[in-house]
């Protein structure tokens, strides 16, 4: 479904991604793990078109994404929960969710809205509140809900569990699993590698802008180097 082929990304003169390639097949959950600054977010932003790669190619559903504007990529069925949530601070919770469904027709949106509210009752309680005053965790829920609103084929999550209460982390992972079994392909970036690998089919390990390891989740969970570096022991 998504094929990333040897991309290089620069921030000015900083070479952040050095020839990364990976693949996400339809129906899979794939996770990228790596230390701070390894380039995980940069990779996701490049896939969604917010950043340009200087070389290489990204293919989504058989089509090259080269030169395609980010908003068009969203229209093709790719959604991203960005790092740091980036909810629209001055819009209400409900308006934020509606923005998530921007590419869809208004009439189709109602069900999705119900669905999000059902999964996150807290958002329903706060639907009229201006998002900027939500607590960190509430904003994270909102960002997640907002991405779900576009009914994406491929959902990319950048550290969705960050700042969430343990009970919610579980919930979020449950939701990810559910979405996946309902047919959404998932590309997951997580610091909580343990959790991520427990639900993912496959994983890639990123180190300073390069893929250093790729294997199935089970293999990665057993890998000593991964254990030491990312699983805390």
């Amino acid at each position, binding site marked *: 479904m998504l094929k990333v082929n040897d991309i290089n990304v620069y921030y000015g003169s900083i070479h952040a991604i050095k020839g990364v390639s990976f693949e996400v097949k339809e129906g899979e959950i794939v996770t990228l793990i790596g230390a701070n600054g390894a380039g995980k977010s940069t990779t996701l932003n490049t896939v*969604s*078109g*917010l950043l340009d790669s200087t070389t290489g190619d990204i293919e989504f559903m058989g089509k090259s994404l080269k030169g395609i*504007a*980010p*908003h068009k990529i*969203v*229209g093709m069925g790719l*959604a*991203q929960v*960005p790092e740091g949530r*980036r*909810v*629209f*601070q*001055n*819009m209400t919770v409900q*308006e934020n969710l*509606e*923005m*998530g469904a*921007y*590419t869809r027709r*208004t009439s189709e949106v109602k069900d999705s809205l119900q669905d999000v509210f059902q999964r996150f009752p807290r958002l329903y309680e706060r639907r009229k509140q*201006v998002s*900027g*005053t*939500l607590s960190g965790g509430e904003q994270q829920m909102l960002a997640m809900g*907002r*991405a779900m609103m*576009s009914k994406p084929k491929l959902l990319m999550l950048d550290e969705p569990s960050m700042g969430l209460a343990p009970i919610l982390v579980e919930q979020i992972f449950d939701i990810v699993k559910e979405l996946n079994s309902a047919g959404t392909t998932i590309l997951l970036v997580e610091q909580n590698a343990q959790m991520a690998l427990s639900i993912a089919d496959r994983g890639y390990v990123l180190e300073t802008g390069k893929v250093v390891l790729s294997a199935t989740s089970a293999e990665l969970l057993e890998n000593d180097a991964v254990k030491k570096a990312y699983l805390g022991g």
Partner: protein
Amino acid sequence: MTVLSNLINGISLGSIYAIIALGYTMVYGIAKMLNFAHGDVIMVGGYMAFCAMTYLGWGVLPGILLAVIICTVLGVVVEKLAYKPLRSAPSLAVLITAIGVSYFLQNTALLIWGSDPKVFSSVVSLPSLKLFDGQLSISGVTQVTVISCVIIMTALVLFTSKTKIGKAMRAVSEDKGAAQLMGINVNSTISVTFAIGSGLAALAGVLLCSAYPTLMPTTGSMPGIKAFTAAVFGGIGSIPGAMVGGILLGIIEIFGKAYISTQLSDAIVFAVLIVVLLVKPTGLLGKPINEKV
């Protein structure tokens, strides 16, 4: 009675400021830039209508239409050429570019139409409204301006809060990157914003020149600054605020002249403005900036 007639004069001056301020706020609110060239787009609108009606002999409505169309196109083109390359630059850089555009428009107008003033014949043929046995009269232009002001304000409020593209504008104004991730075409959204803002500027230009019928290349600059002041006064980014701010500014100006001093009228307007901002630091209708810590 004089108080009342001063009030009416204030409203009529203020409604002109208000209508300019609406366009200002629109662009400011969405594109987050102080478009100091807005006043000069107004001037271009005035000249366009003048040319259509005087040189081409067109009627009032076609004249206005031409002005609106040309200004809309102008706004979009200027945005594409001058502001778009600076999307990710600091907002002050865009402000300076806008000043460059303002110089550009003024000097182009000077080359095309010369420095001689032109007198604009009013596009409003409505008779003045006479009250209290004719002691009080409200001119046709004032009536039209106030009414268009209210209509435009309402339309803009509805547009930005209810329509999809209006909401997209608000999203773009907050976080362009996140807006793109929602599938919003940031560039075309900003173009639409400029189109609307410049179209409004053309209307404002025609009304400004109808109320105060001289037209020069510099005609737009001072009303532009006053309207910017009005927009901030009302709470920058707030559409109803722009209207309230504009009208109040007009009233303060007239009352300041009438009851304090004509010599110091400019100083009075600005002093009142400072005092009001001290009491309400985010303008009259501006929302307090609630920063979540």
